[in-house]
């Protein structure tokens, strides 16, 4: 469990508000960038995912308090992230005729 004292929680509340503002701003950026139709599809994908990863990390680290958690949970989640990326990428790679490794 995270720190128990009332003062610590109040500090957390300030953080929550700041994270909310950051998330709102990043959302606006995401939508605005999508309006720029001169981006190629790979560029658009890269930027969209990059911003999404930042937003997701903010939610995970601060709303879900992952930043103050112990190693074991982080390892489980990293393992999970590795398998997630495997599941995402490998099937698509099998459809390519050659893979530039």
């Amino acid at each position, binding site marked *: 469990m995270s720190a128990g004292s009332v003062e610590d929680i109040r500090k957390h509340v300030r953080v929550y508000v700041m994270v909310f503002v950051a998330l709102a701003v990043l959302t606006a950026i*995401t939508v605005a960038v999508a309006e720029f139709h001169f981006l190629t599809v790979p560029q658009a994908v890269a930027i969209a995912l990059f911003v999404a990863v930042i937003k997701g990390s903010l939610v995970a680290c601060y*709303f879900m308090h992952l930043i103050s958690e112990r190693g074991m949970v982080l390892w489980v989640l990293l393992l999970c992230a590795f398998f997630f990326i495997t599941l995402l990428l490998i099937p698509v790679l099998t459809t390519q005729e050659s893979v530039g490794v």
Partner: protein
Amino acid sequence: MEPHPITGMYNGKFGIWLFLASEVMLFGALFSTYVLLRVGAEPGTWPRGDSILNVPLATFNTIVLITSSVTMVMSWASVKMHDFAKGRLYLTLTFLLAATFLVVKYFEYKAKLTHHQVELVQPVTLHGHDVLKITGHLGEQTDEFVMIAPDPPPEPDEHSSEPTRSSHGGHPEEMRIERSNITRVTDFGPRHSTFLAIYFTLTGLHGLHIVGGMVVILYFMITGASAWQTMPEKYTNRIECTGLYWHFVDLVWIFLFPVLYLL
């Protein structure tokens, strides 16, 4: 409940994190489906999200969900600071924001499911072009023919091709299409195309997760007072676990929104 030395967490929290790991794999499979279907689609057939879906509405929904995440964590912070009333207030706000999200979703889905596409055997002239597909709103349907009020043609500015906006006012009279000239009539639901199939599945499953979360939140709104009297620490922990689940639901949407709507 005491935190365990190895994980630093009490049982319920560790359990929820493990459950969330499995949920990552569940949504991961659906994202993988999205990638494979998009890569495998015939060039030019995969639509840009913003040409079919309503971006402003979804942006609004994104802000609603992020706000609900804040109210959820504030609920936990309040009970942690022993302020039960504030905690319940924030819980109620979370519930209401979630309901708002679902209401918006309802309108999004409805627009899609009441809009139709007729696919033809032989082309037909519409707006000066020969087309094999007509999109619009269905009128009378019999065994011999189908009446359809076609959408107006898209203006040079791409963004106003939104079906929800273009189908009202100023549409030409209904066209009559013989059944013998029709290969398929479909709504803009999941059966329409692989893009809409994965759109409905991803957002639908996400929506079901929102409903599940709302059920739990409602339960705590109702029973919270007595739980707070008898076991305040346990109650606080359960709010924390609910919060973890809720933030995860928000997290999924953070990825869903750009992938489906903006790319």
